[in-house]
């Protein structure tokens, strides 16, 4: 894997996520990020950005989300920041995976996937921004 990074600023619009995914895939292929790790990074990024666009802003017009992906020799670090309302996705309770079908609820699936796909997820609020940092080890 080759070291490098990419920063994508995208308008807070669900239609932009496909473009983000495409850019990250191209970056990953160029830097020879192993395909399993790249898949995980892409899906986690999709979930996080979708959540921000859907719930982060009073009015998403003219707002943006900044995503940075850094490829290092042993891990891929992904950082997502936005200036929306303070929101810690890690505070969402995990879904009850043991519940029978009738009692399974729709909430919390995305952030559960993010936690499961990544080896570490940290949230901080700094300078009026939400910053979520995700780490994926390369094995």
């Amino acid at each position, binding site marked *: 894997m080759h070291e490098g990074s990419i920063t994508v600023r995208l308008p807070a619009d669900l239609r932009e996520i*496909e473009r983000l995914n495409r850019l990250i895939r191209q970056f990953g292929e160029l830097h020879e990020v192993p395909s399993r790790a790249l898949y995980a990074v892409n899906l986690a990024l999709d979930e996080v950005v979708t959540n921000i666009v859907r719930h982060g802003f009073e009015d998403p017009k003219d707002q943006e989300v900044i995503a940075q992906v850094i490829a290092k020799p042993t891990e891929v670090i992904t950082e997502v920041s936005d200036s929306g309302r303070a929101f810690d996705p890690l505070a969402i309770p995990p879904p009850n995976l043991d519940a029978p*079908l009738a009692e399974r609820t729709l909430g919390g699936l995305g952030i559960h996937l993010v936690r499961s796909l990544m080896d570490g997820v940290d949230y901080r609020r700094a300078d009026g921004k939400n910053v979520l940092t995700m780490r994926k080890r390369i094995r």
Partner: protein
Amino acid sequence: MQIKENKQGEVLILTISEHLDSATAAVFESRLLGLVDRGERKIVVDCGSLEYVNSAGLKVFLLAAKRLEPLGGKLVLCALAPSVLMIFEMIGFTRIMKIVPSLDDALKALGGEAAPA
């Protein structure tokens, strides 16, 4: 995403392809739930050509399975790619939904047309 519909006896087979994500989930939701509303009770979703699913897409499967259960219906998913199956396992859906390797298995699970010997 493309959605194809095919009826085999009592079983309705939906074939979906490419990406089931935030951009396409709403279309899939109205299609799948529309089938339940019009009375379909045995539904197979053939995921053999599905390359990518996110939580928006996963929610559609959960909604449909939850709606079918009290109606005595059943949703069966088949032919999931390993990377897609991994996501279903992570979210615990393999415990609450019938997920089988092939379309033949899905038809058998619904008591439909037997697979050729």
